[in-house]
């Protein structure tokens, strides 16, 4: 999926309908998109060093969006 020069937008939302809609919108403007149901799923798949755009739902199961943001700041 990855191609140089095109930034990837990561989407984290537990609502499958919302997740798919956002991913589709991102892709319709020519960007790459990857979606995850939970923050933990995202963390287990992605290395934080890779610069990216993140669409984050605040209300998430297990780890809320705000907690996740704090976690990202910690990691740097």
């Amino acid at each position, binding site marked *: 999926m990855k191609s140089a020069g095109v930034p990837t937008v990561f989407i984290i939302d537990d609502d499958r309908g*919302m997740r798919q*809609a956002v991913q589709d919108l991102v892709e319709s403007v020519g960007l790459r998109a990857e979606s995850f149901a939970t923050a933990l799923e995202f963390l287990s798949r992605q290395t934080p060093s890779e610069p990216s755009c993140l669409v984050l739902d605040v*209300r998430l199961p297990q780890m809320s969006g705000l907690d996740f943001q704090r976690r990202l700041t910690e990691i740097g």
Partner: protein
Amino acid sequence: LKIQQAELQRQWQYLAEAQRLCQSGIFGWKVSNGELVWSDETYKILGFTRETNPRIDQFFDRIHPEDRERLRELRDRSAQNGTDFDVEHRILLPDGVIRYVHVVAHAGTDHSGNREYVGIVSDITERKRAEDERQALSRDLKESNARLEEAQRVAHVGYWEWDLKTGDVIWSDETYRIFGLNPQERRMHLSMIREMVHPEDREALYSGVDVELDAGVQPVAEFRIVTPNGDVRTVHAITSRLWSTMPADSKDWESERPYKLFGTVQDVSELKRATEALQQNQFYISEGQRLAHMGSWAFNASGHYWSEELYKIYGLDPQDGAPTVEQYLTLIHPKDRASMAETIRRMQEEHCGFDQIERIVRPDGQLRYVRAVAVPVMEQGTCKGFIGTTMDVTEQELLTQELRRERAYLAEAQSLTHIGSWVTNFATGQVLHLSDEVYRLHGFEPNQGQITLERFWDTVHPDDAPVVKATVKNAIDTRTDYDVPEYRVRLPDGSIRFLRTSGRPTGSGEIGEYIGITMDVTERKRAEEERERLRQLEADLAHINRVNMMGELAAALAHEIKQPIAASITSANALLRWLAHNPPDLERARTAAARIEQDANRAADVINSLRSFYRTGTPAERQLVDVKEIIGEMTVLLRIEADRHSVTIHRALEADVPKVLANRVQLQQVLMNLMLNAIEAMKETGGYLTIGSRATPEGHLVVSISDTGVGLPAGRSEQIFDAFHTTKPQGTGMGLTITRSIVESYGGRVWATVNEGAGASFHFTLPGESEARI
């Protein structure tokens, strides 16, 4: 001459002596001059002195006046014809003595040719008296013989004689009659008599008589005879020997032996029949008394009689005889004794009869009821005693008492339940039975006497009467049962009572004759109305409860609706962009459109599932529902709320649980109440909500909602279901109450338990599909 004269003298003396001995005198009668010559004895017989010079006139004076005329005729005839005569007549002496004389005279002539009679006059007074006596005797004998005959005839007693020497048999007239013969129609022989004795009795009779005669006993025998025309008669015979009446000093050998058998024979057929009939009657009477448990008694001047059965009724021994009044009173039950003593006193003093039931206590302690009836025996205005009967009526009395009791119970039961019973003939208007309760139900007094059918109809409300009458008429026409479930009657005070009445034709076969009940359904009617009012109230409360719950869920629900809408809007943006591509990416646009539809539907579903919650009024009809489906819906609705409080919902649903017949909204409400409560209990701590469902062996459905929250208030696991009991600051306290009322309306049950680890569990059951109550 001297010798001749002496000889003559002597002969004369002989003659005089002979005359004296035979009481006869000699006389001569010269017809021509009426001169008489008498011997001394003649003087004596005729009562004249020797000095008298008798003349015929003087003689006639002495003749009894009644005989005088007869003698004169005889004298004149004799004087004329000169015939001999022989006459008897009486003479009347101057002292009044009457003498009978017999005069015999022979006619002759004297030496000068004049007619003269010579005759003898004999005194026959003695002979005449003896003859009279003999005649009187003979007359008496004849009379007494006739009386004897009559007596024999009347008493049916005859006699017989058997001359042992000659073998002659003599029967009296009655004996002939008894044997069915005409009196003295023929001479009887022993062999003939033997033939007439009934063959079965013959041997015993003859051998018995002989034996007894030899033993010197007077045989008495009863045997049957057969008359010539075939009648069988029973006779009673007594035989005795007649001994010779010859003087004892005659040396006749026969005097030592009986020369005759004499006997009487009496026809006792009638007596025997009467006796047998009497015995039979007595047997019938005593048997009748025994069967009827009835004894009889008589009390009069000659004593006190008790029948056998009467002794038995009182448990007394007939050997002891009838009891005295005092003894009798000891047999009466103590509670009835005084009144019985009074009854007997009145009977004796005022000669009143009586008829009453009293209790007696037999000597063995057994209590019996007897009905005693007594009547005075009046003869020409005076009381000659009393007769009466006593009947053991214990069984009837106990039955009567039981019947009375049962009737009282029935009346009581009718009065308690307000159900009356009746039997009436609608065709004839005849009222055959009416229990007191029927009177009361229609506003009458039970003791006001028989009430016509018409008056009952008059109490029925005018609006209802035609319907009731039509129903009854139709039932009569078709000879079927009828039931009028509800009609109104107007009571005298103007109030209205609701009644129900049903009837069925009696078994009598009479057209229009019905037996039935009428019951007061006013209370039921009021209760129904009350129930309906409560149901409405409950529905209203349930609605409030639902609205409240929606209020609590508003934030979560808003999110639940907003999310698919937001997704739809985002998808719509994407769709527009895919169309704006050159060339438009139709494939991606179609995918986005499909997603829009899907998300919009999702939002619509949520709204739909909420809409019924806001609806007011009575819940819709019940239908077969799968509880797992409803649990799924509720889990979706409550997910956001659960998330908000860090509550995770687990579902532990058995695959094979029965469907239930229920109203969907009510079931949703129950689940939502219990799940919201569970989330509430974990509001501060978060935790797990586990919802499970399973089937019981009986096929019921059990749903359990467990939490890991604060648990139940200690010892108040039942109280929490009470109305207005709440632990929540904003709670109405209606949630669990409504839950319980809904579950119980399905015949189910709801209860709470404390979990082993933490928190509480709420369970409810619902009858499986097959048992569900609709």
